[in-house]
């Protein structure tokens, strides 16, 4: 038996045994990267030298767009706003989602099923009709023009998916642990913060990533709610390069590259957690 397993491993570790996988994955990865390469190409090509073609490899290399972007007076301020809003959204999103997911996972209360269904249902709300009522609501609540209002909107938008995922993960944590702790006199809150949360790191990491991305990429609400350019977030500044009849592609792409880098870095850093965190419902089956 053991001989068979080693042979098995040997066959798999060699490149030859896996050539077909690479033969499939290489072109697929290229295909996946192609549009992204184009964004990079536009970013490093001065706008007036930009030409359509099928070649995604930059023919000229210039930092012109990047320097123009970074030297804009408000760039750093708007970057800071983005970091602030996304950071706050991440924190608020985690707190709201974890507590709610815990309730759904560990209590059998009247309204539980309806609540979970309601979360799913929110994903079906067409945003088209909600924009104007939301604006009026924010106005009445005095939250227009404030990063708090934006944070609140973003964090709640991210809740349904995060709760869905976290609840699945919490379900996989054996209840025996908690029961033992309760016998030792721990309160609910202690069980939640000392046992459940530390055991759910991967799922929390994914929640964080999601809440962060929701806030980081959004621009319609930010452009509608904020009345000062010093309060705009980075995606709003980015959209300002898209005009009615023409677009400054170079600056737009350079901005997109800058906006994407932190998200890519997060994905890279969290890729293991991402896979584990999304395991969700698989085990509870």
């Amino acid at each position, binding site marked *: 038996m053991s001989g068979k397993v080693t042979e098995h491993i040997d066959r798999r570790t060699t490149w030859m045994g896996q050539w077909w*996988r690479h033969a499939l994955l290489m072109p697929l990865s290229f295909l996946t990267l192609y549009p992204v390469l184009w964004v990079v190409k536009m970013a490093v090509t001065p706008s007036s030298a930009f030409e359509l073609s*099928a070649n995604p490899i930059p023919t000229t290399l210039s930092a012109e767009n990047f320097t123009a972007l970074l030297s804009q007076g408000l760039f750093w301020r708007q970057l800071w706003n983005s970091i602030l809003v996304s950071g706050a959204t991440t924190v608020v999103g985690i707190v709201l989602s974890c507590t709610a997911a815990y309730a759904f996972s560990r209590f059998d209360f009247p309204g539980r099923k309806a609540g979970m269904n309601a979360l799913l249902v929110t994903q079906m709300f*067409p945003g088209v009709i909600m924009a104007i009522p939301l604006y009026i609501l924010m106005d009445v609540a005095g939250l227009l023009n404030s990063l708090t209002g934006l944070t609140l909107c973003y964090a709640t938008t991210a809740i349904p998916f995060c709760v869905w995922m976290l609840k699945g993960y919490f379900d996989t944590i054996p209840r025996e642990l908690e029961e033992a702790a309760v016998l030792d006199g721990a309160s609910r809150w202690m069980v939640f913060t000392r046992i459940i949360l530390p055991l759910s790191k991967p799922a929390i990491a994914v929640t964080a990533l999601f809440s962060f991305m929701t806030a980081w990429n959004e621009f319609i609400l930010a452009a509608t709610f904020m009345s000062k350019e010093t309060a705009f977030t980075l995606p709003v500044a980015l959209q300002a*390069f898209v005009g009615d009849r023409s677009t400054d592609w170079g600056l737009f792409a350079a901005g997109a590259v800058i906006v994407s880098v932190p998200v*890519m870095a997060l994905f890279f850093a969290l890729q293991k957690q991402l896979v584990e965190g999304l395991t969700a419902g698989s085990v509870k089956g």
Partner: protein
Amino acid sequence: MRHLLILILLLFGCSPAPGTGPEVVTLWHAYRGAERDAIDGIVADFNASHALQIEALAVPSKAYRSRLMSAIPRGNGPDLFINAHEVVGEWSNSHLLQPALFPTDAGPDAFSAASIDALRFGDRLWGVPLAVKSAALYYNKAVAPQPPTTMEQLLEYADGGLVLAYENGEFYHHGSLLHGFGGHPLTDDGRPALATPEAAASMAYARKLAADGAVPGECDGAMVATLFNQGEVPFVFNGPWFLGEIKEGIDFGVATLPSVDGRPLRPFLTVEALYRAANSEASDAAVQAVAEALAGEAGAVRRATQGRQALAHKAARQHPDVAGDPILAAFSAQADDAVPMPNRPEMGVLWEPANRALRSVLRGAMSPDEALLRAQREAESFLRPPPEPANPTPFLALLGFLSLVGAGSLVQRSRGQNVVARVRGNLDAYAYLAPAFLGMVTVVFIPFVVGACVSLFAHKDGDFTFVGLSNFWRILTSDGYGVTDPMSFWFTLVVTVAWTMVNVVLHASLGLGLALLLRDPWMKLKGFYRVLLIVPWAVPNYITALIWRGMFNEQFGAINGVLGVFGVEPIAWFSRFATSFAANVATNTWLGFPFMMVVTLGALSAIPRDLEEAAAVDGAGAWTRFRHITLPLLKPALMPAIILGSVWTFNMFNIIYLVSAGEPDGGTEILISEAYKWAFTRQAQYGYASAYAVLVFGILVLYTALTKRVTGGDVA
């Protein structure tokens, strides 16, 4: 009583007393680049020399109109704003504007006649003109030292190849030809005038240019620039915004458009003007001072020299710094001979049908007469009168009755289940839930319910009238269209369902396939592939979707480039339903598979390996193992992801909007993008749009309930 009043005022966001200190006037605009620099410069100089202060805000053009439309009625708008003149009719009807207040030393006479005409609606002037914009002729001096004055001369440069590029699929750019052939988009009393012999002749001419190969068949802005910069075409019809796209080193000039059969081509004229918003409390003196700074001679000269705007101010045009610029002079001359875009509200609904007709004619799918007749019908159907007002009393009674029944059944159901005791025993749970619940209710549920209620109303000019279920009735009976017409709800529904199914199947199978490939724990480069394959998820989709649209470009796109290697003729992707649909699907698949891949990877890692190993030892083949062991074990994890994925795809507005934009003929539109069009491009029929959205919601609820029942899967 006083306190109550103040409280109410505070609640509704109006600050009761303005603070002391210098008066501040807010000014919104959507300029960027050099034009913005010029405005910023004028504002900075003004603020330095006046007690009165201007606070300027540049809003991205994509969010600009909706922002003005939501902010002004609530009293959150600016005092002044700059916008193109087309909105004057609709916005003055909807009480978003106050009549214009001209600077004391520059009355209406100081500005070009065309620009003043453009701003008149219902016997009043609604804005102070700043800049005039229209298309003109760009010519490459290396090929044509002197600009051609007739189309016949221009076409002589063709030599059987391409000679001219303009965005011929846009009715805005086609306007030059339309006017040249004597056509007009609207009749004098504001009815659509698309089905006219003049319009047909202009479209036939546009078609002939493309069919002869003098003009590319399908030409967007980026392609116009590429062709001109590569020297493939010596002539371009385009507006002043094209100046920034010309490659350095090309010696070019600008002249007025040539004539066809002795009649000059006359482009649409857009006048950018300064408006005074309704609800603005700025004093007349302050408004006049700001208007003087921006629209007066000194401001105008600065906008021309720094922002390179063609001016509406007549005296400023003669200023030596301005008059010496041959390009500005050409644009000014063209503007004086351009046709102001009608500012009537009816014009807003014309673009979509007219573009559609134009593109059908250009690709030879329809004769101009046929296409224009259809466009005329469509435009008229967008302009149909709202449904009759209905009496809300029966609805309120029904609502009351239903809520009674609902409450009754809830009480009935909870009886005997000890609900009170269970609630008491789970108070903790509600405490944990409360923060998220509160947030969801305020930010998501309330706006949704309010938005959904709008479906019972008809919106016109800022006023809502209760019409009962008429909107739903019109949609479901596809009132005004045949059931198989792309405009009909049922046609769009079929497309939406097909769109969702194809996407979800592709997402799931691609995600599953890749996850299986990447599953092997000893595989080389596993992490590398995994990161690469997640990339589409990380880059904002509003830019990658635009890249995909470029990849499907007929002449320069990568897709046709690759197909060309295999000997396939270039495909015009957006001119047929099947290929256009496929382009949308390809883009969305690219965006969506990483999520499914990661979910599947997670689920796979939780499946014990030994089950499969055991089956392998027992002699089960790879397919059998997958079919009978792996797949059933994956199902509980994949089902919720698939349901969620289909809900997301069903409402995936961005991709349709940015990639195919509904082409051809609105056929690839999905329900949610139709709803968007009704709300924003077809006379702001919010009620009708909301009814669409409510139907979308209903369909999704039904679908999920059904899927849960069939699969027994518990999404929760």
